[in-house]
């Protein structure tokens, strides 16, 4: 591991001031915030991340889950994933979020990982994690060996000729379906970013994964008032039953009245270069009868733009069946 200076900023302002000196907040950042460590320390051991300053923000007072004005929820960036998943209000009113978190990682990692850190979770693409290999995300312009190499687990939605890396988060898929907002405090002040705008598609700049700039600190994530009544399901399909990243997952929020779908939000995981909200599926579902025919049409719509790589054509059908089954499970709730 490279040498770095470890700093525990006294407060939020000090953390932001120190981080504002960074050259970038994206890949290659020379200043990094340290929350739970589950991504950053892993990647520092691999020399994928080589910050010269590490700002430990794990003791900043951003560890609360509060009711938000107007009926929503305000989740501090340092709230641990396990605390969020086991929060009574989250379990009752934002169940898809609790389900998604509890299907991710392990109990130990959920005890460590923070909400802000999970938003910034990095891809598991083996080429990104191996500094002996080329990778456009890690070293822009060096090439993408995944396109002609091992790409079984990589993205079928939102990829570019530069990068096909999958976003690995489960939590983010639920946050996309819940239409969360990311709150950022930066050197220039505070701003709120709609969840769908927070992560960026790789395009020609796969090293840029989010809208974050130097000095930007995620302070909390807010959820709008809960959809009541609604049926919520997170279904995750993977190579083993637990402690594995998704090959395909689906977050479903559904309201059914008199057999018809009156409200729905759909997001997919394990298939996109970012947490994948599917407006196409939502359109195909809204106002239609809640039955298998409708669900399959929604799945076809959600994966309509899917482009397979050499090893992952199976993920298109897998994702369709994942969404269809998640919708069935939601109806049965």
């Amino acid at each position, binding site marked *: *591991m490279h*040498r*770095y*200076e*470890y700093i525990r900023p006294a407060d939020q302002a000090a953390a932001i001031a120190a981080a504002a000196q960074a050259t970038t907040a994206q890949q290659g950042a020379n200043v990094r915030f*340290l929350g*739970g*460590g*589950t991504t950053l*320390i*892993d990647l520092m*051991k*691999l020399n994928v991340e080589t910050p010269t300053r*590490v700002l*430990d923000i*794990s003791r900043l007072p951003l560890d609360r889950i509060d009711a938000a004005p107007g009926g929503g929820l305000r989740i501090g960036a340092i709230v641990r994933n*396990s605390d969020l998943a*086991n929060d009574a209000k989250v379990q009752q009113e934002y169940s898809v979020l609790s389900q998604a978190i509890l299907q991710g*990682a*392990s*109990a*130990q*990692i959920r*005890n*460590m990982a923070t909400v802000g850190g999970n938003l910034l979770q990095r891809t598991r693409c083996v080429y990104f994690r191996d500094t002996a290999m080329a990778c456009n995300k890690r070293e822009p312009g060096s090439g993408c060996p995944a396109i002609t190499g091992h790409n079984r687990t990589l993205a079928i939605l939102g990829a570019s000729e530069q990068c096909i890396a999958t976003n690995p988060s489960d939590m983010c898929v639920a946050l996309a379906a819940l239409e969360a907002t990311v709150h950022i405090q930066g050197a220039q002040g505070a701003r709120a970013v709609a969840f769908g705008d927070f992560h960026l598609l790789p395009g020609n700049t796969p090293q840029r994964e989010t809208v974050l700039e130097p000095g930007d600190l995620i302070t909390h994530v807010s959820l709008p008032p809960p959809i009541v009544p609604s049926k919520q399901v997170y279904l995750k399909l993977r190579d083993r*039953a*637990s*402690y594995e990243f998704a090959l395909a997952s689906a977050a479903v929020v559904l309201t059914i009245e008199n057999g018809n779908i009156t409200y729905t939000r759909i997001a997919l995981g394990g298939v996109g270069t970012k947490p994948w909200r599917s407006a196409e599926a939502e359109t195909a579902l809204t106002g239609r009868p809640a039955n298998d025919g409708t669900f399959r049409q929604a799945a076809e719509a959600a994966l309509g733009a899917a482009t397979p790589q050499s090893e992952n054509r199976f993920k298109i059908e897998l994702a369709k069946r994942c969404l269809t089954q998640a919708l069935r499970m939601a109806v049965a709730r």
Partner: protein
Amino acid sequence: MTNDDQPSRPNRRQFLLTGGSAVAASVMAATVGDEAHAAQAAAGEAVPAVEGAVPITLRINSTDHSIRIDPRTTLLDCLRETLALTGTKKGCDHGQCGACTVHVNGRRVLSCLNLAVMHDGHEITTIEGLGTPEAMHPMQTAFYTHDAYQCGYCTSGQIMSAAALLKEPCGPDDTAVKELMSGNICRCGAYANIVAAIQQVRKSA
């Protein structure tokens, strides 16, 4: 630990430290040096300054350890190399196996993905602090009774994880236990007996 001081009864640790003549002398020196450093630290003596080292106090198994440590040192390496608490094991060192599981402020975490400096002032429990051979934690007794291991390398992590699980929301059946224990890999495949051990402790609690 005490066996290390008895040359007439060589054990595995001692053999690895003093045997293996094919090992380069420099590596040997470094290894023995670490051990000496560890022993020194364990005895509460001042340790030689390391460039960039920062002073911290870790409360481990109810004992305060005031040390200076390179900020790159993981909690796992600090426990094993600096403080000679080798009950916590290093498996993958990347958060994928659970062998390094310890408790921080009562919750199970992976010591390989934590820096020691992050835990200044925190309450840390390792397998050495969970029970003693004379007064084992119920989970240790259950693992012994159910033969919940083969090679034993993952066992301290499994037991630390299982002991923490007792205080976590967990459904009553085996499936729930397996899900919450999925972060602890056992390559010998002692899973069935591990689940049986945990369920016995939960039922008798």
